[in-house]
């Protein structure tokens, strides 16, 4: 029989055709890279060596928050205060309520956004994060220098932005309403499994509180690219700028004025999968921030800070039950400020850091974490911050944790060298040190959808930095202790309840100003309800109650703030959209802070509407 040419051709080439678009057994049996690893998988909360609160994207959206600081109401131990007006909300953990939020470390994708000018502050970094870019926020409640370095003194906030592969497409959102609220944001993402990109823009403005000159205008622009050059390597590059103008007024004879902050950054990270679940990470960043017209009239405090840094981290499993992470970081800071450091406006410092943590799974029920960080800072020398934690799985659903750690806050360049106003820092400032111990309980009752977290803590501060005459020195040790709890409960039918409560006392020693003891409210709590309603609607109700406290000046009276949000999702033209009505301080205005009765920060009731379209 004559063989048709076509069949012969098929016959001869059959051994070499590999048509990858056609389904075959190869799709079932081909070898695949191992994707899951201890660092890629969400770590079970029960294994964490510290108390952690997670705020995910859904919750961020449901609260209608316009800045990250406002989200911190959902975290036990955190207080939001408007000491300086609406433009700069201070979200502090366990006190520290003054104009500088300096005992909290904030990271965005592993890059510190702690501002180094003057006493140091996490506030500007938090304000510069665009909410729509956030995938999740992990807040470590409690000192975390052992893995995150100095300045994670009271706690740390770790913000992870969304991977570009999750934001392919576009988004436009608008907000408008009372109090001069006018917000707009847009994002465009594109790419595939090899390379994906995103550009986003966010602008938020408002007039602040009605009785203060505290309007605010924030703009962020961010770029991100995620590349996968090989099956084992991932590279992520981000860059962005943040511009912030705000109104301020500090005293009777002071005119209203506008201060400005600008920052830019570039950050590249590389991660490589090694054999047997091991992994190598490295990163490099550069950033610059500038303050303009800062504190004018009282001596000005303008300045520019430039930093570059690089870090590397290696994690692997030695034997089956041991996981070891170690790494190092180098960071250099250059400050230029005639206002703060005359006659030597150019200042510099650098630090070198090494850290390690061993996680030992002693048995099915017992987990031990031993770790620490060593740091050498050019202004103050060496120090080490250890941490020890033991987790005991009492039952499959309940874990008890005991942990103790020492944390440091390195003096800022200002605290070491400033000549601002009448000050003359002699460089004698030593790192502030805090020793903290905690007992934690975590109950995850999955069959009823409830999780309960309780943290009892004792935090002893030594060597707190204070102004003393014309110098800045370490004095006034004190202790704070208390407990805080967080309950999350998903009842059926689209109801979620989040409740936090914190009780704490500051115990002062003889010699400590008595005022310090009242620097934190004795108790404060937040209750939130997230309820799904018919017709694709959902309701959020958040209520925060805070007892009176006096960080400085006349302090803050007791208050209750209730915020509401009612949203409706709908699809139009194939796009997912959401429109929402938000009411802040729905139950009436309250005084947040009295520095001067004429300039009290009164949180007014404001309503605004938002619209978000995704395509």
């Amino acid at each position, binding site marked *: 029989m004559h063989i048709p040419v076509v069949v012969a051709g*098929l016959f001869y080439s*059959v051994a070499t055709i590999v048509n990858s678009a056609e389904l*075959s057994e190869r799709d*079932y049996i*081909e*070898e*695949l890279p191992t994707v*899951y690893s201890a660092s890629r998988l969400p770590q079970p909360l029960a294994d964490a060596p510290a108390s952690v609160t997670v705020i995910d994207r859904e919750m961020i959206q449901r609260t209608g928050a316009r800045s990250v600081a406002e989200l911190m109401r959902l975290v036990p131990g955190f207080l939001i205060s408007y000491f300086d007006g609406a433009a700069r909300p201070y979200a502090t953990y366990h006190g520290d309520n003054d104009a500088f939020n300096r005992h909290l470390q904030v990271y965005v994708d592993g890059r510190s956004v702690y501002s180094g000018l003057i006493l140091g502050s996490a506030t500007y970094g938090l304000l510069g994060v665009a909410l729509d870019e956030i*995938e999740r926020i992990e807040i470590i409640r409690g000192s975390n220098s052992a893995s995150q370095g100095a300045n994670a003194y009271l706690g740390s906030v770790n913000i992870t932005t969304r991977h570009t*592969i999750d934001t392919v497409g576009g988004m436009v959102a608008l907000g408008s309403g009372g109090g001069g609220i006018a917000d707009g944001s847009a994002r465009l993402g594109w790419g595939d499994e090899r390379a994906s990109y995103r550009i986003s823009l966010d602008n938020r403005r408002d007039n602040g509180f009605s009785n203060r000159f505290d309007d605010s205008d924030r703009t962020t622009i961010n770029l991100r690219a995620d590349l996968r050059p090989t099956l084992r390597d991932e590279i992520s590059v981000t860059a962005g700028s943040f511009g912030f103008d705000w109104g301020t007024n500090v005293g009777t004879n002071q005119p209203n004025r506008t201060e400005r902050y600008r920052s830019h950054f570039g950050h590249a990270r590389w991660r490589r999968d090694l054999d047997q679940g091991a992994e190598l990470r490295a990163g490099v960043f550069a950033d610059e921030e500038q303050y303009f017209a800062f504190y004018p009239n009282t001596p000005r405090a303008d300045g520019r800070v430039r930093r570059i840094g690089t870090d590397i981290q290696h994690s692997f499993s030695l034997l089956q039950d041991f996981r070891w992470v170690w790494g190092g970081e180098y960071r250099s800071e250059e400050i230029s400020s005639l206002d703060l450091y005359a006659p030597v406006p150019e200042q510099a410092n650098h630090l070198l850091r090494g850290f390690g943590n061993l996680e030992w799974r002693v048995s099915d029920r017992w987990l031990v974490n031993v770790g620490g960080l060593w740091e050498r800072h050019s202004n103050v020398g060496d120090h080490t911050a250890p941490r020890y934690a033991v987790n005991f799985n009492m039952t499959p659903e309940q874990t008890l944790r005991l942990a103790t750690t020492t944390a440091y806050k390195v003096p800022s360049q200002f605290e070491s060298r400033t000549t601002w106003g009448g000050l003359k820092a002699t460089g004698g400032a030593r790192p502030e040190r805090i020793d903290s111990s905690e007992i934690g309980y975590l109950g995850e009752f999955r069959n009823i959808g409830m999780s309960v977290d309780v943290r009892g803590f004792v935090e002893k501060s030594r060597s707190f930095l204070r102004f003393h005459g014309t110098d800045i020195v370490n004095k006034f040790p004190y202790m704070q202790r208390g407990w805080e709890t967080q309950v999350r409960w998903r009842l059926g039918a689209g109801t979620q309840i989040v409740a936090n409560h914190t009780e704490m006392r500051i115990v002062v020693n003889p010699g400590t100003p008595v005022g310090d003891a009242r620097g934190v409210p004795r108790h404060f709590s937040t209750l939130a309800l997230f309820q799904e309603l018919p017709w694709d609607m959902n309701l959020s109700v958040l209520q925060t109650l805070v007892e009176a406290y006096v960080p400085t000046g006349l302090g803050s009276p007791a208050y209750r703030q209730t915020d509401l949000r009612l949203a409706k999702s709908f699809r139009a033209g194939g796009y997912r959209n959401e429109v929402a009505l938000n009411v802040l301080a729905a139950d009436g205005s309250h005084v947040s802070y009295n520095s001067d009765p004429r300039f009290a920060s009164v949180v007014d009731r404001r309503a605004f509407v938002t619209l978000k379209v995704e395509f």
Partner: protein
Amino acid sequence: MDVWIVAPETGAVYREVGDALRAEVERVQPGVVRWSVVPLQKLDTLTESPRLVVTVGSSALTAVVARTSSGTGPAPAILATLLPRAAFEREIGRAAFKLNVSAILLDQSPARQAALIRAALPAAKRIGLLLGPESRALAPAFRQALTEQGLSPNFEDVTQRGLFAALQSLLEDNDVLLALADPAVFNSETVGNVLTAGYRRKVPLIAFSSAYVRAGALLGLYATPTQIGRAGAESVRAMLAGAMLPPPAVPREFVIEVNAAVARSLGLTLNADDLQQRMRSGERQP
């Protein structure tokens, strides 16, 4: 009876299927069959024609169909093993003659996959499925099987908006992602991003092979090479008894594999043996 087993030489899996099939037939009816194990490359050097050719993998089937089309003498019966239904039908469709063919297929039935989801993840309600050119034809069967188990299926086709826009949409609204084999959707390049996107949203992946579970899928439902071989042996024995080959089918036997680390990170305790037991007894009931 002369039976050939035609398989590529690359890959232990192919050899395991052939060995298991032969061993099972020999166990029950020793000595009745004259076996020839023919490596795929050697196929065109042979001139005889057996009664039955067992192929392992799709390229073996393609070669045997081509050889049969071009050859003389009576066409052998063909039992194709270790391939998905789409590949089997594609190859048989190309044949220019009537064949006595059957297959032992890789695709697990929609009903079995729906039962697995119910057994392993009772809290899951909304099931997301990504469809591509090779898998979209399966959508109606899956819709029916999932709905019958009280689950709510949601499909997104990757050719419309691209894989990751479709994935993002599914991850937003669903509790579980059920993978349907399709090289345009699931392959060694996309698996990394698909799994990590799922980890970020805490949406687990249920997949169709051991390779995916080892990569990081929560669960895999599949038949092992040995189980495929044994199912093939049953078909061979039907022929030995004088009947035609039974219709193409999925093996009755299956295994469930759990990725313990992924399960733990999701707060789940899953026992593969326990799941297998429950599902098997579920299938035995009428």
